[in-house]
């Protein structure tokens, strides 16, 4: 790195103060809590850590969490792509309203998202009795958990894609069409490569949130141990039973999942750095 020009050289004290402020803030708000999770989890040694995790309840919570994310994330990926495509490629009446609705899950409390489902599909809800007659149980069941998670994580992919696709415009797609490509070919060979990073980022955020969602899921799940308790709910259950090591052990697993997804993103970006740099123009 070359030395900055004299015009850009700030007083060393100011530089130091700003760096300390930024690092201190991040440390206090992000790193310290994250570190605490792992410290607490390992407080009684590695054996206690693993025995905290290795319980049938915890395993079923992990399984449930992965199933829920495995359904909600693909659903919202397809939805996000379709919504972003619609919003950025077509002009229609009510477009702004649609964008607002996509954002809605961000602005309302997840607890309310959960309550809506209870009101709709609960035993005393609008459709509850009919569904019960048909033998379908939504609330206090995995179906409800998936629905609530899907609702809460709905905006992630769409929100990443809309600004990018708006900025890119549709010239490349129009060019592909004039060259004779059909819709699928245009989508897979032109649109998708252009948005893949934003899409991946959206999917990662969506996954992290789907696995970590607490509020909405807590309302619809009923917290039946070993059946409708997802990992965040299991953490709460264990914590309330003063089983701190197990609670933090499960929490550390959740944090680990999140860290792994971020690591995957970083590795991919590093691997394709050349390609990214080559495409950066305009």
């Amino acid at each position: 790195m070359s030395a900055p020009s004299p015009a850009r050289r700030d007083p060393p004290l100011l530089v130091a103060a700003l760096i300390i402020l930024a690092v201190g803030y991040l440390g206090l708000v992000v790193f310290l809590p994250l570190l605490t999770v792992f410290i607490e989890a390992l407080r009684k040694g590695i054996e206690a850590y693993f025995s905290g995790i290795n319980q049938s309840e915890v395993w079923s919570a992990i399984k449930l969490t992965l199933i829920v994310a495995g359904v909600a994330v693909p659903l919202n990926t397809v939805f996000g792509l379709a919504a972003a495509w619609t919003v950025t490629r077509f002009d229609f009446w009510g477009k702004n309203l649609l964008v607002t609705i996509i954002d809605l899950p961000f602005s309302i409390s997840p607890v309310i998202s959960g309550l809506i489902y209870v009101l709709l599909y609960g035993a005393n809800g609008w459709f509850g009795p009919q569904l019960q007659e048909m033998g379908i149980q939504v609330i206090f069941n995995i179906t409800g958990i998936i629905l609530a998670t899907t609702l809460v994580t709905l905006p992630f992919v769409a929100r990443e894609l809309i600004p990018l696709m708006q900025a890119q415009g549709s010239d490349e797609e129009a060019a592909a069409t004039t060259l004779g490509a059909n819709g699928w070919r245009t989508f897979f060979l032109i649109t998708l490569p252009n948005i893949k990073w934003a899409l991946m980022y959206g999917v990662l955020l969506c996954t992290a949130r789907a696995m970590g969602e607490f509020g909405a899921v807590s309302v619809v799940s009923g917290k039946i141990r070993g059946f409708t308790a997802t990992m965040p709910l299991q953490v709460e259950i264990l914590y309330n039973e003063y089983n701190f090591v197990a609670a933090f052990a499960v929490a550390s697993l959740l944090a680990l999942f999140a860290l792994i997804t971020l690591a995957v993103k970083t590795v991919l970006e590093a691997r394709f750095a050349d390609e990214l740099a080559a495409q950066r123009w305009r």
Partner: protein
Amino acid sequence: MSLEITNVNKSFGRFPALNDVSLLAEDGEFLALLGPSGSGKTTLLRIIAGLEIADGGAVRFGDEDLLAKPVRQRGIGFVFQHYALFKHMTSAQNIAFGMQSKARKLRPSKAEIKAKVAELLALVQLDDLGERYPAQLSGGQRQRVALARALAIEPKILLLDEPFGALDAKVRRGLRRWLRELHERTGLTTIFVTHDQEEALELADRVAVLKDGKVEQIGTPEELYHEPASAFVFDFLGDSFQFPCVVRDGKAVIAGVDVTILGAATPADGPSTAYARPDAFVVGPADGPGFGARIRDVLLAGPDARIDCVLDDDGAIEVRVPHAVAQKLAPRNRISLIPREVRVWAET
């Protein structure tokens, strides 16, 4: 086969972009659509390609109804103003895309595609740059890749939207000549959109001047330059100055001087507006006929000398005179100015 556009209409919301436009491009013709921004020229081009949908009217190529066909079956090569190259593909991959998009039965073999790509790269003089990504090419090179990509589908019609709009003047002039040669070699019916009159007059067989979604005039560059159909066309094709005048017996009376009116049609007698080009002025001594003026600056660089002067009755104009005349003039001299010839159109 000729491309025939009849009574095409298009509006965006309440804004009318095209108003009953009819045009004919002959087989193999190089036609320019010239107009200021907002005149509808790009919209017309996009309608022909199928990227916009016309509200009414017809576009036929020979006896084919183009508007009835989906974009990808029209066989029209389109070159976008900002190239629209596929950023994640190399030049060669960009050019091959159209051929690879053909239905399996019609698709050339891999070897054929490779040969064709090499041929097109040679045609656009980028033989060694097939493996470069668009970001690694200059603006002019990108534009040529875009052109090669459009030509790869062996289109029946080539449409160019402000093809040199984003390039600097020198590159633009070079590409212009090259495009003209390319057209002579391929013989494709070509329509290109531009707001640069010099470009249109130099390149095109015929030029259609558009204004507010209507064709103001269509003709060869000579016709347009020497017989402009309206004040708008005259003004758009070059610098012009306007003077109030009175038409009497086929002459325009300006500042008490009878001035020749150019053009076939003679306007009716009465007050009107006269239009003159900067190189159609007579510069005389201070007490000569016409407008009195004071010279602000004499610019001697360029094929013609330019005299920047301020008229006594307000307004500044810059006229062009031969160097021989200009050498006798200096800043702050007083002169008289009168157009040698003007054009007059019926006032609308």
